């Protein structure tokens, strides 16, 4: 068996375009996941019982079912309910974002619960409401604690985004498949795809380590 280096070089620009799209999906999904996760995480520990239960159901459902099935639900099942086609890009980001939101919610919950309860008491004793105390005192401190687990979530999501290739969305994995369908270069292309994922995840973990260090000194 031989390794065709030319194929790697020829395909690389196309794969990099795919990687760019992977980054785009990941970044948008993480953004969506962070917003959802923050609210769901806070709802999870609020004193309003229906809110707390709703948040628990959300987390259980999204963590207890495969992301692949969630993607299918949004891309294939949801259009049947809406009687309208869903754009693959929108479906990809929605599926990854709400899935990630469940994991981020648990990260937030843990980060908030790690803050000394004296902080909440101090805020409340000054006449601030629960929401004000959360916003100005608890959440900003929790953010510092949750940078490392959020980084892990970012990396996990970047890898999981390869699943959206199944709905034909042309990110890195799908690009690879398409090139292989044309050239039969499974070895060269899958190896290249793997290396590109590896470079991206390593870059994120370095970035997170750097941010963690910066936050520690501030």
């Amino acid at each position, binding site marked *: 068996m031989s390794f065709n280096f030319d194929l790697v070089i020829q395909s690389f620009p196309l794969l990099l375009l795919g990687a760019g799209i992977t980054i785009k999906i990941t970044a948008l999904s993480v953004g969506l996941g962070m917003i959802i996760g923050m609210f769901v995480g806070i709802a999870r520990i609020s004193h309003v019982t229906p809110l707390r239960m709703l948040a628990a159901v959300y987390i259980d459902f999204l963590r207890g079912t495969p992301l692949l099935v969630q993607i299918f639900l949004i891309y294939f099942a949801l259009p049947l309910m809406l009687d309208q086609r869903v754009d693959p890009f929108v479906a990809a980001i929605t599926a990854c974002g709400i899935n990630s939101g469940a994991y981020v919610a648990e990260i937030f919950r843990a980060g908030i619960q790690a803050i000394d309860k004296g902080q909440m008491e101090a*805020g409340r004793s000054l*006449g601030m409401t629960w929401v004000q105390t959360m916003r100005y005192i608890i959440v900003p401190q929790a953010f510092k604690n949750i940078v490392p687990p959020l980084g892990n979530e970012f990396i996990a999501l970047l890898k999981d985004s390869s699943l959206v290739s199944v709905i034909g969305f042309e990110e890195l994995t799908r690009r690879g498949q398409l090139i292989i369908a044309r050239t039969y270069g499974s070895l060269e292309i899958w190896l290249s795809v793997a290396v590109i994922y590896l470079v991206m995840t390593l870059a994120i973990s370095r970035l997170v380590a750097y941010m963690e260090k910066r936050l520690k000194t501030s």
Partner: protein
Amino acid sequence: MIDIKDLRKSFEDHEVLKGINLHINPKEVVVIIGPSGSGKSTLLRCMNMLEEPTSGKVVVDGIELNGEANINKAREEIGMVFQRFNLFPHMTVLQNITLAPMKVRKISKEEAEKTAMELLNQVGLADKAGAYPPQLSGGQQQRVAIARALAMKPKVMLFDEPTSALDPEMVKEVLDVMKSLADKGMTMAIVTHEMGFAREVGDRLLFVDEGQIIEQGPPKEVFDNPKEERTRLFFSKIL
């Protein structure tokens, strides 16, 4: 200023407060002492609803502490100082002090900072305005915490063992600030183990044991002539 009627508090099966009646007058300094586990901190924490009573009534400055809105309203008038300071570590000393006046009282940043600097001057820490709490000693942190509570211009100040977490050499600087506050006519309720301070600054001494007020009166009388056996027993252990 503070009116407490038949206050009871249970944690699960354990009744910590067994029917407390207490009236604190404006400008009065009430010092609460008692063995650990006697319920004295719980009593203090019921005065601003950090601890929710099982039954009974607490009225502060004419506001009955029931319902979220009333409680928030009353808390604006009740300053609290904690054993472990509970300063906000991600904010500077100045931000710690100005946050609540700006967010709750809705006063401008300039005005809040002006008041904050005056208060920092009062507690002798004007040069620490830009520092972060973890950079300060325990005594300094507690003085900032007092300034933070005072910035809301409260009518009552509650102190929950304010010197218990301090190294011995820092106790005096905090007590001095509290004493000057008492001299200015602040209404205060203080849970403490500092008997010298209680005798010197308190208008009234409350001895609490097993969830009840066992004895109360002017500090000198209670210290020199305790009427109750349990009070005598307590003093014999600590003095």
